[in-house]
């Protein structure tokens, strides 16, 4: 039976391949309905002339128009492209978009074949098609992931057929990301051109153009399914092999820096997170408010943890709507040392807790900003009751730890609802209680004593609220000194903190140095994963080479240490 439309399509594809018109090829590979009329024609010709059970005639048809081996100077094989084309036809013929899960599987397999075509020596022309298919697959995977009713039956299947580590569940989203990652690897391992990976005009050469496009899609999916380990591999690979990020278009740079910042944030590297997110924010288009806002939320949190608060100006920008109400109360109580309000704000029952939790910043604020709050409380205690020093008698300014304990106890009691309200003794739930299982009523014991594990025999029942004592306060102050957030030493014997070096600047400035200056002074501007134009020698990428292991989540910085 005659197949005029298929013939025409193949003729034009052959022409596109000869001209190496990559974007036109992408535009021809239409997948998503509603299909243009000519594509519907192709589908009906496929259904009548090339039925499902026999692929050979269709393959022969493709080869008729596209010679397997290119007869040009460069040579090269189109074999894998022909297989891709065959799969494309099969997709058009067999897909039923009502069946989203099956569509996803077919699309994944089609992309797989497209990536094989990309790997061929003739493959560069397929790159935009690979990107386009990857985007569609990513969108479909995330869309499906939000429909638990459609993928419930897959959970078991995936868990048994997982190819990664045994026992680890590979979700539909992750499996899609793993396919796109193959495209990313192909782009990154491009060997054409010189070692810099840039062509004469300074643009990424060959398949390298697709590095950040594919990486960003993988990162989107890995973040969606919370596989930060897999995201880490992407960052590590890029750090070792990619041309400088600055050579890629703004949308790719901003998206990549957003994920890189989030990754470092999730690993408690808040200074690195701040650098990446600040760069993303400063390069993000003014009109892209949604993206700016999302970047800003993490940038703002990272900065708060590092001791830098948002200016009123920043909080009045269009993308900051609502953020002032959410973040300013934290800043206020951190500056005051108001532990009671801080506990209330970080409590799961608080007004905005759910939003903070969903954004995955509540625990970071709760744990990390508490350090800054204790510094402020010590500072305030010193202002209210500290010995301000006596230069004539060479007596250093001191802070009585007992006074810190007095105030900390007052504020913790207030947070627990014990202050001035003796009736309400129920302790509000602390943030960390989400990690604890709810106590289930114990079954009636057969033994009147009940079962007591030998490990716990003789253990005391916890009684009363968890209020600070002098040891807690001493260890907190010691920790602050250790982090350079307080400057001086502790006399364990007299339970006092003595400020050193107060002569020149005064006790307050000497004993309680500026948080941001202390913390930022401990780091350089190297951000693993971010390939910059000029790199300092001996550090990070300057020393990177083939086979080098890039450790992205090493020791915690001061901003990450808890009191």
């Amino acid at each position, binding site marked *: 039976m005659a197949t005029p439309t298929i013939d025409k399509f193949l003729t034009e594809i052959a022409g596109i391949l000869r001209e190496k018109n990559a974007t036109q090829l992408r535009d021809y590979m239409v997948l*998503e309905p*509603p299909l243009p009329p000519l594509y519907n024609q192709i589908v009906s010709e496929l259904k009548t002339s090339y039925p499902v059970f026999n692929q050979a005639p269709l393959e022969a048809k493709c080869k008729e128009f596209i010679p397997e081996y290119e007869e040009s100077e460069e040579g090269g094989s189109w074999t894998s492209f022909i297989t891709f084309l065959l799969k494309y036809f099969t997709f058009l013929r067999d897909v039923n978009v009502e069946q989203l899960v099956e569509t996803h599987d077919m699309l994944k397999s089609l992309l797989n074949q497209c990536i094989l075509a990309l790997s061929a020596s003739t493959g560069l022309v397929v790159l935009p098609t690979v990107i386009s298919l990857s985007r569609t697959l990513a969108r479909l995977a995330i869309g499906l992931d939000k429909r638990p009713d459609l993928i419930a039956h897959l959970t078991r299947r995936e868990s048994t057929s997982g190819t990664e580590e045994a026992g680890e569940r590979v979700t539909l989203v992750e499996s899609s990301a793993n396919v796109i990652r193959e495209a990313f690897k192909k782009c990154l391992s491009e060997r054409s051109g010189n070692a810099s990976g840039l062509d004469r005009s300074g643009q990424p050469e060959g398949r390298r153009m697709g590095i950040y496009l594919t990486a960003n899609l993988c990162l989107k999916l890995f973040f969606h399914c919370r596989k930060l380990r897999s995201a880490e591999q992407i960052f590590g690979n890029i750090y070792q092999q990619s041309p400088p990020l600055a050579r890629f278009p*703004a949308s790719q740079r901003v998206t990549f820096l957003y994920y890189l910042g989030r990754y470092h944030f999730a690993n408690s590297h808040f200074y690195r997170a701040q650098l990446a997110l600040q760069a993303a924010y400063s390069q993000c288009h003014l009109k892209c408010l949604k993206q700016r806002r999302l970047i800003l939320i993490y940038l703002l949190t990272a900065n708060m943890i590092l001791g830098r608060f948002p200016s009123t100006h920043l909080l009045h920008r269009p993308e900051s709507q609502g953020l002032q109400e959410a973040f300013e109360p934290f800043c206020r109580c951190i500056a005051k040392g108001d532990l009671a309000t801080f506990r209330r704000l970080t409590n799961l029952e608080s007004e905005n807790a759910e939003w903070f939790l969903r954004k995955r910043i509540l625990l970071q604020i709760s744990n990390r900003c508490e350090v800054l709050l204790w510094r402020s409380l010590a500072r305030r205690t010193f202002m209210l009751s500290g010995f301000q020093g006596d230069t004539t008698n060479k007596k250093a300014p001191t802070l009585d730890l007992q006074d810190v304990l007095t105030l900390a106890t007052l504020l913790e009691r207030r947070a627990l609802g014990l202050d001035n309200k003796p009736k309400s003794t129920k302790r509000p739930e602390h943030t960390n209680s989400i990690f604890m299982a709810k106590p289930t009523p114990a079954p009636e014991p057969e033994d009147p004593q009940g079962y007591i594990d030998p490990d716990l025999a003789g253990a005391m029942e916890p009684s009363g609220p968890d209020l600070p004592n002098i040891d807690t306060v001493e260890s907190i102050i010691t920790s602050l000194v250790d982090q350079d957030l307080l400057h001086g030493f502790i006399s364990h014997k007299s339970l006092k903190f003595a400020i050193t070096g107060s002569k020149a600047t005064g006790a307050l400035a000497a004993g309680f140095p500026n948080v941001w200056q202390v913390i930022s002074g401990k780091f350089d501007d190297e951000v693993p994963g971010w390939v910059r134009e000029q790199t300092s020698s001996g550090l990070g990428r300057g020393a990177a080479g083939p086979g080098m292991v890039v450790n992205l989540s090493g020791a915690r910085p001061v901003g990450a240490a808890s009191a």
Partner: protein
Amino acid sequence: MSAAAEGSGPTANAVTSDEGSSTTLKDQKKPAVALEEDDEFEDFPVEDWPQEDSEVPGEQDTHLWEESWDDDDTTEDFSKQLKEELEKVKANK
């Protein structure tokens, strides 16, 4: 032959029909202020733009971050309460 690259096919179906299906009891709690929004980092509508398009005109030197936020006011209520407590505890000793 011409081709329309963008369609509203399978993916659009999946994405648009998800609303409301993932509502849990937890989600029903009313969120405060204007904070509810999507967590997904959306694709940019354009591929590239010059740096000027990212800068608020006339704001190049505006400072976005407060590095000095220490609160030295010891006359407001909070400090007064703390001072009272310190005096009370010391008097009881």
